[in-house]
């Protein structure tokens, strides 16, 4: 029977025992098995602001956070991470021509009630860059949160886009679990700096020149 499987140069692939005619078999044409998307925010160093890093696909927010850790911080220094389901992020429109999103807001914030939620506010200051955490506000609704952010977090420079996320919708790595970033310092094999072969090359070239000049 072995001859009916694809024999590969890669022993792992040979072990997959793929039928020779696999590409001729009909494709499973079912609905897309597409998971939920999560926006990932990362804090590079203690004391720095969280910044948007990218997305992950995951079934739940817990696994999203674990996936985000390996996809976005396996190589870069990191001291904190947070994820939120994309659908929980409230985004403002983009502005142009030096106008801040906050200038589009007319009206005033309401008085905060006891049932208010905490919202985390992220600003985009330049196209092409990432959204960065600006602070948090307490507000009765999303609309209200925009006004509250205008009151307390509006910078001098124009903000081109704002994201608001209820704090309850964000999952962060607990303080006591932050040691997951304390990995073996011997992870140098992931860095370009670990690969120095200049001396080897130099010796080789010198030897070559010596032999070719004879």
């Amino acid at each position, binding site marked *: 029977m072995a001859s009916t499987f694809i024999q590969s140069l890669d022993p792992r692939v040979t072990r997959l025992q793929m039928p020779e005619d696999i*590409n001729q078999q009909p494709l499973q044409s079912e609905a897309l098995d597409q*998971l939920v*998307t999560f926006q990932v925010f990362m804090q590079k160093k203690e004391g720095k602001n969280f910044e948007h890093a990218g997305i992950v696909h995951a079934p739940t927010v817990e696994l999203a956070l674990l996936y985000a850790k390996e996809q976005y911080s396996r190589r870069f220094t990191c001291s904190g991470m947070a994820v939120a*389901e994309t659908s929980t992020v409230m985004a403002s429109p983009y502005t142009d021509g030096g106008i801040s999103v906050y200038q589009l807001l007319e009206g005033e914030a309401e008085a905060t009630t006891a049932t208010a939620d905490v919202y985390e506010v992220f600003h985009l200051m330049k*196209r*092409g860059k990432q*959204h960065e955490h600006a602070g948090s506000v307490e507000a009765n609704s999303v609309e209200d949160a925009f006004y509250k952010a205008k009151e307390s977090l509006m910078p001098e420079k124009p903000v081109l886009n704002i994201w608001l996320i209820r704090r309850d919708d964000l999952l962060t790595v607990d303080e006591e679990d932050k040691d997951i970033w304390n990995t073996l310092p011997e992870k140098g094999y992931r860095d370009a700096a670990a*690969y120095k072969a200049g001396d080897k*090359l130099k010796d080789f070239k010198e030897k070559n020149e010596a032999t070719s000049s004879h």
Partner: protein
Amino acid sequence: MYGGGNTFEKLQGTDLQNEDPQKLAEFEARIQRGEKIEPADWMPALYRKQLVRMIEQHGHSEIIGALPEGTWITRAPGFKRKLSLMAKVQDEVGHAQLLYAAAETLGKPREQMIDDLINGKSKYSNIFNYPAFTWADACTISWLVDAGAIVNQLANSRGSYGPYCRALERICAEESFHLKYGHHAVIHLATGTPKQREMMQAALNRWWGPLMHFFGPPDKMSVHSETLMRWKVKMASNDDMRQQFLDMYVPKIWELGLTIPDPLLRKNEETGKWDYTEPDWEEFKRVINGDGPLNKERLAVRRTAEERGKWVRDAMKKVAAKEYVTPLA
């Protein structure tokens, strides 16, 4: 990793006629000013279509590109190489994730892209359809194929679409590790025992042709490519990238005492450009159309991974109990 030679949609004369001329002018002015386009911005349908196609092909090239080097992942000699190769192949999977994410912001779900890879609707870089016969092939890929990819990716990272540029910024940082690792491994083979040198030379002989194909056929300037260049979708011509690659790497290959299997290869003092034997573009076309040495196996592996992982994704989907949402940025 990724090369040039992207296939773009043919431009129809009517493609831009349906667009609102004022919006189109504003869009082009923004790109002219050097500003990035973000997902929520208005953009011509053609721009969206070409970008999805290009970024998707790039993503496919990463996930398929994990396979040729993956061939040696269980056989890397020694701890250092074993860890490096594991990390490198992992990075390529990570690159696919980042690139698909960038393409997703344009409205095409990731699973749709993966389906289109498996059913053959969308392409990936031709070079990954060639086999890695020995350890030296894996090292050659890590060094030179990644070197080619970096030339292409650095150019693209100056493009106009924000999410793609951000993904490329991350990717390029990791590629510098790939390049150094690959060079390091090749230096060890080329300066090593006679047997190692022999392996290395044989691998170079095999990969030179595919490397010359890597950036795609010579460009014929068309209205089409002018539009893509104006929109900063296509950032450099195939020939320019090929010349840049030769400039940077031919001397580095020669200094290792290796022979490049092209008797015509030399820097032309008058033109300042490299002369070389024109690669076999008929072969290039044949491989793109599915008839390369390993097209069948590469797709079979991807398909098998998807099909055997389906129960995991189905279970996760049930746990999530929520619908997919297009990512924001």
